[in-house]
């Protein structure tokens, strides 16, 4: 039994070790928006644009980066029922391939969202694309279809007439998806290689736009999938779907939790932090702060501070140790995307296409550069090989220092 646990632990741990420079899923490899080891351009200007390519269709999903490829999803057509999975050369922006499929589930969305709102994920060998229609598509890195799950067809009531937005995570060999709506709600763990269901668990029947995130493995506990809902947060074994622990104080249904250095930042009653107990089977609350309530962007952390943005576009910095708010900085909102955290800076893009690079210190935040992209930006940026990637409906940009 111990041997099996050790093997499982190694498998899970290795899956989280993406190639250097990869940004394999929503908000990065660990789902906390931290771009470790990256040196992103902090003086954003038109001169930083390495390339800008046109996109077809619509998309709110974020780009991901895998071994020199930028993977992106979009939807097109009058009914937005054409689902695109696209690959671009990270160096040149050249479109390498664009595979299109027809949605098997409902494609109606609020106009601010679109069918390609969830961000795809990759395990380095395959791309997993997910859509508001609950189509879950796996291709290899060359775009060849590997498996296709029409979760909208299999579970036709699990949809939200405003649209679904939850992105995928991969832990070990399991692709985890949250499919939660008023009419039907579940989470599912799908075998990355075969597309077969490993587990499926019922979830609170309530519309939910949050994404799962990862609690990395420790010496004593395997990695867990963290599933957030209006009820709270559940730590779930990605191999079996077993709920290991639950945080039951309620949580937001829009911004998602983040895990930084073992602490879980939950958008709950403002912002609440918890840590798993030593046995990994229960939680200990660290603090709660009503002054750090996030709006749509998820909480992030850097150098002893945690950051949230409210609906008015005010950036709040709070102590990671105590939750005390220590300063605020007025940005121009509103924001939908979560900032990337890298080389001592926060990289924001607001809904109007304004980019802000913020350098936070212990007692203040400073905007070090701004750039107007002139297009609606609703996604979260991706970081890879010292470059920043962002998309609108119409374009995909790469920013780097070399240009």
């Amino acid at each position, binding site marked *: 039994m111990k041997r099996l646990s050790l093997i499982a632990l190694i498998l899970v741990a290795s899956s989280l070790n993406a190639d250097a420079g990869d940004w394999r899923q929503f908000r990065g490899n660990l789902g906390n928006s931290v771009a470790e080891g990256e040196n992103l351009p902090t003086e954003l200007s038109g001169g930083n644009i390495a390339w800008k390519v046109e996109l077809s269709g619509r998309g709110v999903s974020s780009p991901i980066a895998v071994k020199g490829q930028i993977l992106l999803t979009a939807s097109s*057509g009058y009914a937005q029922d054409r689902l695109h999975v696209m690959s671009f050369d990270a160096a040149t922006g050249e479109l390498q391939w664009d595979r299109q499929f027809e949605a*098997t589930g409902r494609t109606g969305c609020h106009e601010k969202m679109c069918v390609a709102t969830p961000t795809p994920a990759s395990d380095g060998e395959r791309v997993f694309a997910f859509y508001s229609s609950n189509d879950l598509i796996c291709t290899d890195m060359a775009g*060849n279809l590997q498996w296709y799950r029409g979760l909208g067809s299999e579970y036709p009531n699990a949809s939200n007439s405003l649209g679904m937005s939850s992105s995928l995570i991969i832990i070990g060999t399991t692709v985890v998806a949250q499919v939660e709506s008023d009419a039907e709600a579940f989470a599912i763990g799908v075998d990355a290689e075969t597309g077969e269901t490993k587990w499926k668990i019922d979830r609170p029947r309530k519309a939910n736009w949050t994404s799962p995130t990862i609690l990395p493995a420790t010496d004593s506990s395997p990695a867990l999938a963290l599933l957030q809902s209006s009820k709270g947060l559940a730590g779930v074994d990605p191999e079996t779907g077993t709920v290991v622990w639950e945080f039951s104080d309620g949580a937001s249904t829009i911004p998602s939790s983040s895990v930084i250095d073992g602490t879980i930042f939950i958008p709950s009653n403002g912002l609440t932090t918890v840590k798993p107990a030593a046995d990994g089977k229960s939680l200990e609350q660290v603090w709660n702060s009503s002054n750090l309530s996030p709006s749509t962007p998820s909480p992030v952390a850097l150098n002893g501070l945690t950051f949230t943005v409210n609906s008015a576009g005010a950036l709040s910095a709070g102590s990671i140790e105590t939750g005390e708010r220590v300063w605020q900085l007025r940005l121009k909102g509103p924001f939908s995307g979560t900032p990337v955290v890298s080389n001592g800076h926060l990289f924001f893009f607001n809904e109007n296409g304004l980019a802000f690079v913020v350098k936070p210190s212990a007692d203040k935040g400073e905007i070090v550069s701004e750039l107007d992209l002139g297009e609606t930006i609703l996604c979260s940026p991706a970081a890879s090989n010292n470059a920043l990637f962002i998309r609108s409906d119409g374009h995909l940009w790469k920013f780097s220092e070399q240009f």
Partner: protein
Amino acid sequence: MKIVAVALIAAFLTVCVQADQIDILKSVGDFSKGTAEARKASEALVNGGAKNLLPVLKAFQDSSLLASNWLRGTFESIADAEIKSGRSLPKDELVAFVKTTTESPAARRLAYEWLLKRSPQLEDELIPTMLLDPSPEFRRDAVQRLLNAAEVAEGNDATAAYRKALKGAVHEDHVKKIAKALRDAGDEINIQKHFGFLAEWKIIGPFDNKDMKGFPVAYEPEKNIDLTAEYDGQLEKVKWQALSTEDDYGTVDIGKQLENYKGSLMYATTTYNSSRDQSVEMRLGTPNAWKLWVNGELKFEREEYHRGTRMDQYKVPVTLKAGPNTILIKVCQNEQDQPWAQDYQFQLRVCDSTGSAVLPSDKSAKRENATGVNR
């Protein structure tokens, strides 16, 4: 002679293997059924190259949507590899396939889009003939061309272009635009009829849905439709009453036409006369929880409140029998008090898979006018 025979046998075996692989793709099912075999079959077809393009397209016919996606992925992998290798796609065969309206609309559109990558001029050749095509995407392109022409034309020329466009229009945005132009020009446009909305209903209620507990409750009208019956309702005795709508998009607005009974539910029924046994889509739009029965059989139910509504929000496949068909819908209102959560309404239409109206037989005599133009 021997060589010819061997070549013929080899070709025959190749075709057989190809057909087997395509059959494997066509047999995939929900819950990942047949995926491992499909992956291998797709890979083999891709490796087989351009000779498999047409057979893969032809296999779309009668395939499930899931299987079509396997065929689509296989076609695109083959076509992409051919183009990247500097080879041409079999243009003449693909154009002929696109023109064959008995083939799958989705497959024809796929072939067309790949043809356009190298031969964009084909759009001018093919689209103008597709106003009444079985593919809604082709129709949309044909209608758009007419709208573009109408916008730069004047007077009778513009009106004629709009009238022609309306014949093929199956999408709400196009019909809205055309109807406005034609109404401005003095035409009477019946949008209800154009889309096939059902406007004449009998309705009964309210029944209790406090705390949203009425959704699973089978009140008498869903056990037996007796239009002469009287029941205990939520507030008093209730009877069936006639309720019709003149809304262009067939919206039956319970909240405005009757009353926005909070925490209630209503039943509405109508009879649809079908000229024959046929498969249709019933397309419903409502922000309320609902259930739909046709001829006593529950077709779908959905318990979602106030997450938005739109035309064709739900597409329910239904098989109609020749003669009268009874449609029953249960519409539920909750007790949310936000201003955006007050709608209590539904719209329902009967159409084919392109979105073209399938009118009841008592209206089919006027089918030539189903485009809604009266002038």
